[in-house]
């Protein structure tokens, strides 16, 4: 298939660094150690960055940026590329002057420094984090031209912190305590109500991501983390947790993060991110450049637990083939799937369909629209379609 390529074509013109020649970088010394005490990506990777869609919001301070999923491998999102979502920008918090207050319906209201919190036994877990608005620009139609914008409000890190349960036990939750309110130290004082069952189950109070301390964008020095739930509930820059007997119905759980149906009624406290998936190779950013072998690759995830199976369709959902799950299959974490295929210019309508361990099967766009209309904004987890053209270009289309 490659007989036609000349050396010069392969390398964009110059052949002086190609064999049999000794490349310039092999004939000299490079920089030494601790030239970069904290390292950065190669300058050749300068296009692998977070991006925003400016028309989504009035300005950048209450806005969102997306992770370049098309360029990523495995399941870990490097900290520098985790998507951003702020309501009042990123506060610069001195960790020595940050406090967490835990109060309300508890026996002993407690106040913690960061040092205090880091003395508790820690747990580390690889879990996805997703904005419930991920994909939400496409309820009414396909309008995003790249994977970064259709699915990029998504990341997966190893998070380290203290189970909130442990702190609540130390404070002693009173029997009437049924909900908690978590609140941030940012200008938005972001607040969300969370049922006590979740708080006592797997909610974490987190201070590290992928080994190092939280990034400012992800809540430095402290955040909540609700595995599998809509990202907005994982309050960043966490400074206060109050235990109460009922939910607070704050702005982010009424005006926002409620799901308006076609009949005018809205679903509230829709916390779980249901099973979802997307194909990352090919995709608009990764068109098919060679005929012959191709690994169809993608990501699947479910807020209800482990991914059990992913199927792939080449014909827009008429027929399906099981894909292989590869690498680690962790609960509430990104999971990679893979299907080896051959492509010789035939048009494809590529889809992936995730099934999680509860048996839930990711719905079609038609099913989701039938159930919810097109005004829900959040929780659009329907099967996504990529159209592959004869020249290998990939575009975003919707099939109903």
């Amino acid at each position, binding site marked *: 298939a490659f007989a036609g390529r000349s050396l010069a074509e392969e390398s964009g013109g110059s052949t002086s660094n190609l064999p049999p020649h000794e490349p310039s970088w092999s004939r000299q010394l490079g920089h030494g150690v601790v030239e970069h005490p904290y390292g950065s990506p190669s300058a050749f990777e300068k*296009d692998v960055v977070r991006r*925003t*869609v*400016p028309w989504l919001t009035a*300005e*950048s301070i209450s806005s969102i940026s997306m992770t370049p999923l098309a360029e990523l491998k495995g399941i870990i999102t490097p900290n520098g590329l985790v998507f951003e979502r702020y309501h*009042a920008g990123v506060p610069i918090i001195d960790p020595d002057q940050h406090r967490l*207050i*835990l109060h309300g319906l508890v*026996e*002993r*209201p407690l*106040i913690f*420094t960061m040092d205090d*919190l880091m003395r*508790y036994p820690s747990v580390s877990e690889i879990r996805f984090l997703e904005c419930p608005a991920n994909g939400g620009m496409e309820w009414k139609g*396909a*309008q*995003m*031209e*790249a994977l970064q914008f259709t699915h990029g409000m998504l990341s997966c890190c190893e998070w380290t912190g203290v189970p909130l349960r*442990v702190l609540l*036990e*130390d404070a*002693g939750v009173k029997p009437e305590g049924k909900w908690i309110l978590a*609140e941030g130290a940012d*200008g938005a*004082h972001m*607040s969300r109500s969370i049922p006590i069952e979740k708080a006592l189950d797997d909610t974490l109070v987190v201070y590290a991501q992928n080994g190092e301390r939280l990034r400012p964008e992800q809540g430095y020095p402290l955040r909540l983390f609700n595995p599998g739930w809509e990202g907005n509930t994982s309050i960043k820059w966490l400074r*206060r947790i*109050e235990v*109460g007997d009922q939910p607070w*119905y*704050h*702005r982010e759980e*009424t*005006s926002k993060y409620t799901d*308006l149906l076609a009949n*005018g009624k*809205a*679903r*509230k*406290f*829709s916390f*779980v991110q*249901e099973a979802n998936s997307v194909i990352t190779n090919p995709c608009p*950013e990764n068109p098919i450049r060679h005929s012959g072998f191709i690994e169809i690759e993608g990501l699947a995830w479910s807020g209800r637990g482990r991914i059990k199976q992913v199927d792939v369709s080449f014909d*827009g959902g*008429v*027929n399906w*083939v099981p894909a292989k799950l590869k690498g680690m299959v962790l609960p509430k974490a990104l999971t990679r799937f893979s299907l080896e295929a051959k492509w010789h210019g035939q048009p494809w309508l590529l889809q992936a*369909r995730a099934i999680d361990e509860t048996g839930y*099967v990711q719905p079609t766009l038609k*099913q989701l629209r*039938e159930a919810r209309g097109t005004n829900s904004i959040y929780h659009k987890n329907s099967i996504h379609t990529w159209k592959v053209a004869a020249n290998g270009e990939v575009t*975003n*289309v*919707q*099939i*109903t």
Partner: protein
Amino acid sequence: EQTRYDIGRTASSEEIAGWDIDVRPDGKGLPPGQGSVMDGERLYEARCASCHGSFGEGVGRWPVLSGGFDTLTYERPTKTVGSYWPYASTLWDYVHRAMPFTAPRSLSVDETYAVSAYVLYLNDIVDDDFVLTQDNLADIEMPNRDGFFEDNRPDSPNTRCMQGCADPDELQMVGTIGGITPVGHFKQGADAPAASHEGQKALEEAK
């Protein structure tokens, strides 16, 4: 009594009071105070209208705060404090914690009562002589108070069909609208907007 880990210390009532700013539908959390629609109008014009408009109509892309009644079933609903929010407490709580946008927590308690009263007035929920207080806020009945229901998902799961799952002739395909996402970095010659608000501003000014 000793906690299991004996880490941290007891928070004092004073410490808690300074940060305990949340308000609930039943009025719990509201501090004593009051504010009239009249006082609210002046404050709103000075501190809010530049973004949200004199009538709550929203300037440019900033949020609309009023109107939109009975549009929740429309193709493009207008969700506002008046048309969508179930409780007045949410308004007081949010304005007090987050507004005005550029100076959060800068309003006094009485000022918060006043502007909240005014936003309710803009939505025809209270009259122009209304005075909002700690005691009457929880009694305000918002138009859409019955508009919400508990999460009952899964509401639309699929089945794992493998063969002939749809009729190919019936499939409708809709393509992407071109040119509205910032894809210049990977599409040669794409006339796409910039990937940042600043870049977007520059682009628009250049036009």
